[in-house]
């Protein structure tokens, strides 16, 4: 789950990384006395999407104008999301912008720390056009701290005051079960002070519970509802509902739907042991979406009981057309039950998805 900027900065502050003076507000009234912030302030919309700067979500203004500008910012939406929280910060006199991040390298199975003097811009762009400007060091996962040489090599000839920030970012990455901890830009001010001007922290979804995070904000309402049932669910924008078991098989089903020129409405993996109740839940969940026209159920596995699955589909009794492909034990019984209730069943996923392209007479 992505933390919002102010949450990320709280994580940084706890780890000993200096952050700008700031305050989170949920209404203009909460602005309060801004005299400590100086002549100018920065208002930053806290929305869970990227590209807020270009969408007008970051405003620099004289402190006196902050109430009016904040009121206007609360009134806009950014990529469809309303602005409900604003981070108010001091305006920083920046001398130079750096970039520092810790992330996980799948190939070497370890954290990698990145540092570059070219901060403040799209790091992906720098990585493409000028990869030598990014210094990177992999750290063996059994290390609890960055070794001093790694900090020296990363920071290079940049101001030495950046070293402790790099070391602290690594600690925060470990302590918070992060998949990514990124400071962009990491700034040196005109007076030599070092601050994290922005914060991007992504916490491992598998570690939310032990990090004390109750709800994964990255999920929509329907996705969260599905997760409570133990389903993996992603909303898409087509009209074919999909229930599969296993992430790979479900993805392959979506791909096949695209292959046949149709568009999937969702990804839904019911997980292992697809029984009557879970299948009924899954089919009903999809049917509740007004966009879904046809539902394809694709279940495969040695231990899937086809008669149970069939009863689940019949129990759900949804209005939409349901096309079933399943293989497992008691296949014949399952097929008989489905036929009896007027459902279609196919042996292969190709024919099942292909059937969805034909208008049923």
């Amino acid at each position: 789950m992505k933390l919002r900027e102010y949450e990320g900065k709280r994580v940084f502050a706890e780890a000993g990384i200096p952050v700008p003076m700031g305050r989170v507000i949920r209404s203009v009234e909460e602005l309060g006395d801004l005299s400590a912030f100086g002549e100018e302030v920065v208002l930053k919309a806290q929305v869970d999407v990227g590209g807020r700067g270009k969408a007008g979500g970051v405003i620099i203004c004289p402190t006196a104008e902050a109430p009016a500008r904040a009121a206007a910012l609360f009134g806009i939406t950014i990529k469809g999301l309303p602005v409900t929280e604003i981070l108010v910060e001091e305006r920083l006199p920046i001398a130079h912008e750096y970039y520092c991040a810790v992330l996980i390298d799948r190939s070497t199975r370890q954290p990698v720390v990145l540092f570059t003097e070219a901060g403040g811009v799209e790091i992906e762009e720098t990585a493409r056009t000028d990869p030598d400007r990014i210094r990177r060091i992999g750290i063996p996962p059994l290390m609890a701290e960055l070794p001093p040489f790694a900090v020296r090599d990363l920071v290079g000839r940049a101001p030495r005051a950046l070293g402790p920030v790099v070391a602290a970012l690594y600690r925060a990455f470990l302590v918070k079960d992060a998949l990514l901890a990124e400071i962009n830009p990491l700034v040196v001010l005109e007076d030599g002070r070092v601050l994290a001007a922005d914060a991007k922290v992504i916490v491992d979804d598998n570690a939310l519970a032990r990090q004390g995070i109750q709800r994964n904000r990255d999920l929509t309402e329907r996705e969260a509802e599905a997760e409570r049932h133990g389903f993996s669910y992603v909303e898409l924008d087509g009209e074919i509902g999909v229930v599969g078991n296993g992430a790979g098989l479900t993805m392959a089903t979506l791909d096949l739907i695209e292959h046949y020129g149709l568009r999937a409405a969702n990804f839904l993996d019911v997980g292992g042991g697809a029984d009557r109740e879970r299948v009924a839940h899954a089919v009903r969940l999809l049917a509740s979406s007004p966009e879904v026209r046809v539902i394809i159920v694709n279940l495969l596995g040695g231990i899937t009981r086809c008669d149970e699955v069939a009863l689940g589909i019949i129990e759900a009794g949804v209005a939409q057309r349901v096309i079933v492909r399943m293989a497992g034990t008691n296949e014949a019984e399952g097929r008989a039950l489905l036929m009896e209730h007027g459902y279609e069943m196919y042996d292969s996923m190709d024919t099942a998805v292909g059937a969805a392209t034909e208008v049923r007479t």
Partner: protein
Amino acid sequence: MILADKKTGVIVAGATGRQGLFHIRLMNEYARQVGGAGVVAGVTPGKGGQEAAGVPVYDSIRAALKEHDADASVIFVPSGAAGDSIMESAANGLSLAVAITEHIPVHDTMKALAYARLCGTTVIGPNCPGLLSPGEAKLGIMPPHLAMPGPVGVISRSGTLTYEIVDELTRAGIGQSTVVGIGGDPVIGSTFTDVLARFERDPATKAVVLVGEVGGALEQEGAASTSLPLVAYVAGVSAPPDKRMGHAGAIVEGGEGDARSKIRALEAMGVTVASRPSEIPALIRTFL
């Protein structure tokens, strides 16, 4: 055949849970069928002295190894303790640990894998269905009736999609040497590269099917590392960016790891890529 054979004795960690009990039974049914060693003991801390699906349970792997010969563990321990179970397997000298458990925090996985590497233990998974050498050994949860012995190795990040493809191969009369589910997490103990290196040394394996997914670049790295004939399939051509498609590792991040660029990279290396699972048997047959 790679990683396990009839002689491989197995300890199941997390033996007394629902999954553990169920799969000890299925693994030993298969072992009896093929005349293999199968699961010789179970481990659940605090439950030593009990029995699980017909095998004796011990408090620790150390205690189990005092009474039984075993080379491998299959881990069903809940996610919070599964990393520890990988380390326990490694510390006790098992040569192979197969971690079935899903939802292990990735920091736990990284630590456990680093520890296992220091001990020289091979880890398959986590978040995987394990491995199956048809007619020889089953370590994990794959349904063996879909498989048959033969010359094709299968390496897959998926579970049920692997069964789908094994089923397609078997129906086409093409058997498998070993089917390895390497797991759907972003960080896994054995990558395509690691398993391909084993297939390369296995005289019974003539060609390999790689079943990949969106996320990362392990498929390309694997293909670049081997001289074996390969047919690849990559799931997730229709997956939107920044959405986790069920598996923790199946996510297109920062524009990287999408299926189309993976397929392009594989084809550029001369790998045959199937656009649907059903195309795989005909494509792999050209290499046999």
